[in-house]
């Protein structure tokens, strides 16, 4: 009776002269903005850094502010691998496989001194920095880093994500390790990366 007919929303009116309801942007800005603010972390916690990581995820520091509240314990639904803690050689093939299972685009954060360099564990059992196994985007120093430190690293990673360009053809290429040795950087480089520094200079390789 007195009802006005509903407007038909299936019809989209397009009036280029009115600028209402329209935003022009670069596509890669939009994509990067979406990616940077919904990084799903794959937590690889092996030591005390994982405790600080848990604190970062909990309510006081609240990783959810970065769109990261969804811990992806399956690598196949993860965007960023956060390696929190030292990695022994026995875990090297494990973290390598987890990294290979993650779909592109993917990033890695080495959280803490052990994951970044091996820290004081310059011994027979510990990998001297996970960058000898997988490519790392952000290194977070500290032993362990405070949650603020990790968040700063995450914000640096977000900045890195925002700077990516789709026209860059190599940026999303999967790094394939050498099929024979399974190393993805040359052996002399690994030896050089693992050179002792700091306190470990005074240790001798020969033992007795």
């Amino acid at each position: 009776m007195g009802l006005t007919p509903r407007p038909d929303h299936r019809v989209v009116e397009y009036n280029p002269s009115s600028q209402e309801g329209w935003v022009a942007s670069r596509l890669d800005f939009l994509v990067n903005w979406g990616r940077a603010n919904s990084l799903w972390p794959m937590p690889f916690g092996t030591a005390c850094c994982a405790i600080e990581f848990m604190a970062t995820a909990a309510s006081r520091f609240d990783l959810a502010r970065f769109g990261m509240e969804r811990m992806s314990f399956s690598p196949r639904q993860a965007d960023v691998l956060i390696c929190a803690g030292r990695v022994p050689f026995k875990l090297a093939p494990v973290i390598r496989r987890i990294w290979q299972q993650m779909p592109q685009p993917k990033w890695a954060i080495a959280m803490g001194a052990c994951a970044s360099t091996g820290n004081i564990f310059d011994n027979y059992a510990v990998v001297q920095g996970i960058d000898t196994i997988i490519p790392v985007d952000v290194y977070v120093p500290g032993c362990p880093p405070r949650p603020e430190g990790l968040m700063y690293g995450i914000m640096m990673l977000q900045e890195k994500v925002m700077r990516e360009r789709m026209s860059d053809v190599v940026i999303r290429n999967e790094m394939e390790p050498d099929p024979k040795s399974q190393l993805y950087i040359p052996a002399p480089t690994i030896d050089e990366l693992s050179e002792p520094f700091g306190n470990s200079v005074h240790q001798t390789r020969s033992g007795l």
Partner: protein
Amino acid sequence: MTAPFDIAHAGSANKGSDAPATPRNVPNRGGAPNPSAADLKAKFGTAIRRVDVVWGETNVYVAPEAALDIIRWLHDDASQQYDYLVDVTAVEYRDLEQPIEVVWHLRSLPYRRFLRVKAQLTKNRPLEIPSVWSIYKSADWLERECFDMFGITFVGHPDLRRILMWEQYREGFPLRKDFPLRGRFSRAEQLRQALAANPEARYSMEELTIADAFEDLPTDMRQRLRGGERTGE
């Protein structure tokens, strides 16, 4: 309904005073030895090489060839009842002349006693010692760790292989004094060997839960498992 196991009551074999007492003013060396030491001397004679009391704890040095009999007696005899194997480990001294010691930490819950049994192995012959797995099932992983770190062969162990390092580890025994802290190979070589390991091939089928479902598996799979095949291979 009977209990599936005998419940151990600490101090139950001590008549009269079975209340635990905190030791005070314990001297570094000397003091009253564990009564088991005198019993061991009376029973085994020269196989008991030496008895020390250090910080109130009794160390008994035994002959390696008699170690199994001694520990079995300590476990079985009603006057000892060492029913708990706390640890099996080894000690190598910086002085290379010194023998390697294998150490068993034994505890008797009924008597509230602690005893440390040591056997010395000279270095110029194979490091072999009888396994106590037939007495204490908990010795399984403890002896594996000791083998992994020191290279001591526990004769009679059912499954003596590395437990901490991966099975293909070739650099030696890390806790030995002649082992360099950073290992024998270069970092790149260590990494290459570590990455070559299959992360899923570290456990035998028996250790995995699939062992429970063994009878339900297809025939061909059962045959492959019987042949000792490892997972992931």
